[in-house]
């Protein structure tokens, strides 16, 4: 048996990294749409998410954190959370995370640490990639950033709300 040690055809080696050879890259559509959840943590963020919801997306759900759902036993621990969907209905965080591929949390200076950690923990438990976008305004966002830090794989601190749509597009929301 002949063992090929050197490339025989041009496209069998790294020299094939030409524009001409790039034409032969296989072009196939994504098998399944990505399931993204965009969750606003506070009222300012909710306004941003409402505006975003009016744009054209590839199936992402735009949600607003509503309230913690406490676990039984009175220990004060949150078991779940309620979220408001764009049509006004109230849904459970746990239901929304079912089958989600990516969660993007949007927060401003007012964001509560509790909300951040409930969502963060729920994502971590389910091994869902989560990103936090913190929009800076007049008030310092340090607290919001600290609240999100332990829970978001990626945190972006943005001066301009208009940066959010391109980021979500890049993430195929």
């Amino acid at each position, binding site marked *: 048996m002949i063992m090929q040690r050197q490339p025989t055809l041009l496209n069998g080696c790294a020299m094939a990294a030409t524009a001409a050879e790039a034409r032969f890259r296989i072009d196939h559509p994504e098998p399944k749409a990505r399931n993204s959840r965009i969750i606003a943590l506070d009222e300012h963020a909710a306004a941003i998410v409402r505006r975003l919801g009016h744009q054209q997306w590839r199936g992402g759900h735009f949600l607003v954190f509503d309230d913690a759902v406490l676990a039984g036993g009175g220990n004060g621990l949150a078991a779940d959370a309620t979220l408001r969907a764009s049509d006004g209905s109230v849904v459970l965080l746990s239901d929304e995370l079912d089958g989600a591929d990516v969660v993007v949390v949007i927060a401003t200076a007012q964001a509560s640490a509790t909300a951040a950690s409930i969502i963060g923990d729920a994502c971590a438990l389910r091994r869902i990639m989560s990103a936090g976008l913190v929009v800076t305004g007049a008030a310092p966002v*340090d607290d919001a950033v600290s609240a999100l830090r332990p829970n978001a794989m990626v945190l972006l601190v943005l001066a301009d709300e208009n940066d959010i749509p*391109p980021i979500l597009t*890049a993430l195929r929301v």
Partner: protein
Amino acid sequence: MLQHKINELLTQTGPGTPMGALFRQYWLPALLAEELPENDSSPVRVKLLSERLIAFRDSEGRYGLIDEFCAHRGVSLWFGRNEESGLRCTYHGWKYDVTGQCVEVPSEPDERQSSLCRKIKLKSYPLVKVGDVLWAYLGDPATTPDLPEWEFARVPADQTYTSKRWQECNWLQALEGGIDSSHVSWLHSGGLKSDPLFKGAQGNKYNLADKKPFFEVVEGDGGLFIGARRTAEDGHYYWRITPWVLPNFTMIPPRGDHPIHGHFWVPIDDENCWVFSFDYHAARPLKAEELQAMKDGHGVHNEYVPGTFRPLQNKDNDYLMDREAQRRGDTYSGVKGIAMQDASLQESMGPIVDRTKEKLVSTDSGIIMARQKLLKAVDALRDGGVRPPGVDTEHHKVRSASVVLPADQPFIDSSREALTVRPGMPHASV
């Protein structure tokens, strides 16, 4: 994922393109100073932002960067004679000074020389030496910015070293590798243990122990700071902070007392770029063995095809792929050296990768933000003539850093000092 037209916009830097206009706002590394080592040394061909130029140093030591081709009949001035304060075309003897001004048309009568020459001027750009690099400005002379203040180019000569290599792909692909901190845990994992310019730092153990860093991206005046954090002892995080300054400067976070490295990713044309790789120590001369390691191609540097700036490991030889080393785990990819580990993969994407097909994930956020900032800078320049970030020399005074911080502290506030140049003071490094 990026729309096709945005991919084109970001990757095309020739004359008349929006991104090309952005690049023409900055002093860019064009050559190593050693390429024009003395007065009247050989002229050097330079292609920059899709413009073919010739660089030379005249009898008085002035640097010139002019159109490569003679105004007479288009001969390359690379064949020219660099003598008596000008570059003379060897075809019919027309001669040009460093500003591209024609100073002699020998075939014409002596008394007509000055009137004829005055009307002949090749396009030229300023070329100046700062540090070990010759910098060119290809933009409007009316808006020539102040000279570069990058720390690596401003420290004493014995504290700094710069090399350059040809990379056979678009500049943005190469730059994005410099911003993409998430590949380091994989592609370069082998080098942390063995490379003389990385090994032995305290921080390396956090790197190797925690392969899934969390990221924080914060905007700075000149671009971005990308923080990658890993778990350290007792409620602390180990942060590695990479600055990116528009459009094409990145710096790698330091390790221990090793010199600090970084890059400029300079478009040659849309399918090729120069990678200028520097190493410097802010507080002490480079040690002889460090300098030797750099020249031998360790760290961010590389070995060359002798007599060229083409890496010895290149696509014609499959980057000297060593499958045994890959299996043993000496290198993660089988390619030796971090520079060529990056270059091999980035070139494999094709000359201009089709970004409509990529599947970005959250850990690509640094790249996503950088593109976004480039686009905004291009728009603001085109629509309102706004001077982009990174032109102001204050934006040059950034540093990378590696620090250990309590878990609740934002890296950007705690490290503001560490991320700013303090002349003569060492980097914040773990």
